[in-house]
């Protein structure tokens, strides 16, 4: 094998854009300004689960400096968007449902941020309230109102490896517990922001806005607006952190519509509160986990039921909850595994990607089980983990054979050494 040139490996390389970032020159989307630029604000849902019966923009429209207000009635041809399932409406129309507090009811475009914010407050809305479902267990009940057209259970995934029944008969100790994790916001320091510019000559919409999936965002904006992809140009400025939160569409489609409608550059920056309410979160999981172990401390079986609250819209929820289940044994060898995972709609803020993508929620459950089991068996928890940890050649709950580097044992040993585990804390 030819030797790799040692230009980078084993050396500290300065980040290419660090100089721009320490001087404040790096341009994030909110740092871009155009002459004649307009500002956009969104009138959002007034209730987490309700039919929109009336929307009155007349007072808001009269404010000097308000250039345009767009409601669903103005854009009948615009389609839903979404990462996996196109279930998110761009604007909620009369007779349609708002499903969480982040749903958009109207796009307000004005000469300044202040005017746009003032106009948003003057939009009058009448709604017909429905039962608000904030608990996924309630959402799964037969008599619960449907949040979308079909079942509130968006997807159910199954997992089976070996014979879990046999595995539990081999166990000397069985522990079963329920674990619950909470919503988390990714909180990238940069809030969602962008600028849209429409060129009437080429009919190309240029969007300067952060995204983690440049081409997916382009495709989703295009299908929603019914335009060919080449008419949507996404220009990626410097991103001020994302951690999964910028996988989903945020400002993009609203900016495109505003730019087309006004033929002027439009800027849209969320407030932090808006980002908290309207943009994705980490899924809260309810995890029922049963784990079997022999007297000598070897895991024999793991059975798990996962309920993941994906909120009002699917986002990447199907994949996150599904993947979370696949991590049910953590980095430990278990021959017999059985699992079921439900991804459930509620009226909470929708949940999507966040660092770990379902794996971290599950870690809370399986590592807690490991501690409880080691305590019951009176085995040192580090030793208990080491004797069950994956090796080269181990097979995961979904049957993947680990043929590349498997560093968990070294990691556990190193962590124990560094924390002075043996000497006691």
């Amino acid at each position, binding site marked *: 094998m030819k030797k790799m040139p040692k230009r980078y490996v084993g050396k500290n390389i300065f*980040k290419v854009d660090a100089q721009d970032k*320490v*001087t*404040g020159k790096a341009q*994030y989307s909110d740092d871009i300004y155009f002459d004649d630029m307009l500002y956009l604000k969104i009138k959002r849902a007034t209730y987490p689960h309700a039919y929109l019966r009336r929307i009155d923009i007349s007072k808001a429209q009269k404010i000097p400096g308000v250039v345009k207000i767009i409601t669903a009635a103005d854009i009948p041809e615009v389609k839903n968007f979404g990462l996996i399932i196109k279930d998110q409406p761009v604007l909620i129309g009369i007779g349609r449902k708002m499903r969480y507090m982040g749903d958009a009811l109207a796009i307000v475009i004005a000469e300044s941020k202040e005017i746009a914010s003032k106009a948003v407050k003057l939009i009058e809305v009448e709604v017909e309230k429905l039962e608000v479902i904030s608990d996924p267990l309630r959402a799964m009940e037969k008599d619960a109102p449907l949040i979308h057209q079909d079942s509130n259970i968006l997807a159910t995934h199954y997992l089976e490896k070996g014979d879990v029944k046999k595995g539990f008969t081999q166990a000397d100790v069985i522990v079963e517990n329920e674990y619950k994790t909470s919503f988390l916001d990714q909180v990238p*320091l*940069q809030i969602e922001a962008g600028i849209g510019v429409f060129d009437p000559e080429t009919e190309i919409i240029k969007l300067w806005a952060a995204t983690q999936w440049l081409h997916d965002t382009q495709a989703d904006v295009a299908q929603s607006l019914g335009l060919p992809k080449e008419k949507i140009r996404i220009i990626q400025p410097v991103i*001020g952190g994302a951690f999964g939160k910028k996988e989903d569409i945020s400002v993009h489609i609203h900016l495109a519509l505003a730019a087309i409608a006004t033929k002027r550059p439009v800027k849209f920056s969320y407030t932090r509160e808006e980002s908290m309410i309207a943009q994705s979160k980490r899924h809260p999981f309810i995890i029922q986990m049963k784990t079997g172990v022999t007297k000598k401390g070897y895991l024999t079986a793991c059975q798990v039921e996962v309920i993941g609250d994906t909120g009002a819209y699917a986002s990447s929820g199907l994949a996150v909850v599904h993947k979370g289940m696949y991590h049910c044994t953590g980095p430990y060898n278990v021959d017999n595994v059985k699992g079921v995972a439900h991804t459930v709609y509620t009226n909470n803020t929708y949940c999507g990607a966040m660092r770990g993508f379902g794996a971290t929620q599950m870690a809370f459950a399986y590592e807690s089980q490991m501690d409880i089991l080691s305590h019951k068996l009176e085995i040192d928890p580090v030793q208990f983990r080491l004797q069950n940890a994956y090796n080269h050649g181990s097979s995961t709950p979904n049957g993947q054979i680990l043929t590349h580097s498997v560093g968990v044992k070294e990691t556990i040993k190193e962590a124990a050494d560094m924390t002075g585990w043996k000497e006691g804390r």
Partner: protein
Amino acid sequence: MSKLTIGFIINGQKKIIETTPFTRLLDLIRDDLHLTGTKEGCGKGECGACTVIMNGELVASCLILALQADGAVITTIEGIGSGGHLDPIQKAFVETGAVQCGFCTPGMILAAKKLLEENPYPTEEEIKRGISGNLCRCTGYQKIFDAIKLAANRLSTRDGGRGEKDA
């Protein structure tokens, strides 16, 4: 909308500018002066991304009205370093890998600047306290502590100070 005229010195330059009674200093700096190195992360004085130095004090520019800056002396990130040369703190941030997404970096550097002016030989605990008003979501802070230690070391060496003191 009533307009008011204010004057102040920002990064060594005198400015006279029209503003409104409800314009935040942050908006004045960004939207009117286009000094966009000052960032908005929360708008509530919690995150420190909008940090500037005003009359020698670290302030969250999202909590200051533009009118309060009348007559003030202000330093933003654009006023750190000179003539295309990085300040030792900026240089240390680049060299230690203390910069990732970079959104907190301008505020962090200003907080570090203020800290090292007051306390040229900070311990790690003092560094932590010095930047406690500034949130970072990427680095886990360790590299930022390293950067400030490195800058402190270099600055004290340059000034004939204790130099290699282990902070």
